[in-house]
């Protein structure tokens, strides 16, 4: 049922790009097929945010998600990864509805400052996420952390893609 609906409605997948702007900065961009108002909502309402922030391929589960989205408000996400627990928390520095979010990450002294901008254009939204780290080492470590989070599950994903690949012909 879902598959049918998606094959009718889902437009072509947009590409995610990542660029290391400098030793301490990373920029991620992606276009979404919806107005900025809705994309912003998905970033700022915890019940929506938790639906996408931890994709299955990360091999983690999100235990809790608290977000007080206003200047000076705090957020806290708690994860389970096997037997280990971790948390991701910080403070919102700027909140401009439908266009801009800035937050800090405070798990360590090496936390980043993340700026997300939402630029609407003809029913689509260009999202640009800019991360600024205090040092090159901190950014290197963040990337390696992402790799660790994704690494072991990539094989599972590959297997899944092979399975899906065999059924692509029907659509």
């Amino acid at each position, binding site marked *: 049922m879902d598959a049918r609906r998606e094959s009718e409605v*889902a437009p072509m*997948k947009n590409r*995610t790009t990542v660029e*290391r702007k400098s030793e301490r900065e990373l920029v*991620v961009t*992606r276009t979404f097929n919806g107005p900025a108002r809705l994309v912003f*909502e*998905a970033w700022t309402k915890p019940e929506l945010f938790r639906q996408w*922030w931890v994709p299955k391929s990360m091999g983690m589960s999100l235990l809790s998600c608290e977000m007080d989205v206003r200047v000076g408000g705090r957020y806290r996400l708690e994860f389970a990864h096997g037997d280990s627990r971790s948390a991701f928390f910080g403070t919102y520095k700027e909140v401009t509805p439908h266009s801009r979010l800035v937050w800090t990450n405070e798990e360590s002294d090496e936390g980043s400052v993340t700026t997300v901008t939402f630029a609407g254009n003809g029913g689509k939204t260009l999202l640009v996420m800019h991360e600024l780290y205090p040092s090159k080492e901190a950014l290197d470590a963040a*990337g390696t952390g992402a790799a660790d989070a994704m690494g072991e599950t990539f094989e599972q994903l590959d297997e899944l893609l092979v399975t899906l690949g065999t059924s692509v012909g029907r659509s």
Partner: protein
Amino acid sequence: MVQYSGGPLDVSFAVLSDATRRGVLEQLGRADASITDLAEKFRMTLTGMKKHVGVLEQAGLVTTEKVGRVRTCKLGPRRLQEEAAWIERYRQLWDARFDELDKVVEELKRKEKVDGRKKRE
């Protein structure tokens, strides 16, 4: 400029058969350097060093970048490959997240449509 007709091994062999070029690679393995720095270190003319760096660059072993009047040299492909792999892993993480976000946005759009219809009725 030196021309190569063989495969990658031949290229590397020809490039690395020169002691200065091997020295430059070792040097860049420790730190990036300008062509002027390298020329001084290896007691060569600027023109001579430019030629060596050109050969290394053509082989992809070194990359150079000009900032202002200074051309800085750094180690090439392996580092670039590592960097590219690092970026790709990061990209896959965000791509996976954003695929899920696409679904959330689609769902919000669908709800809005339904709500809009209800309001009009």
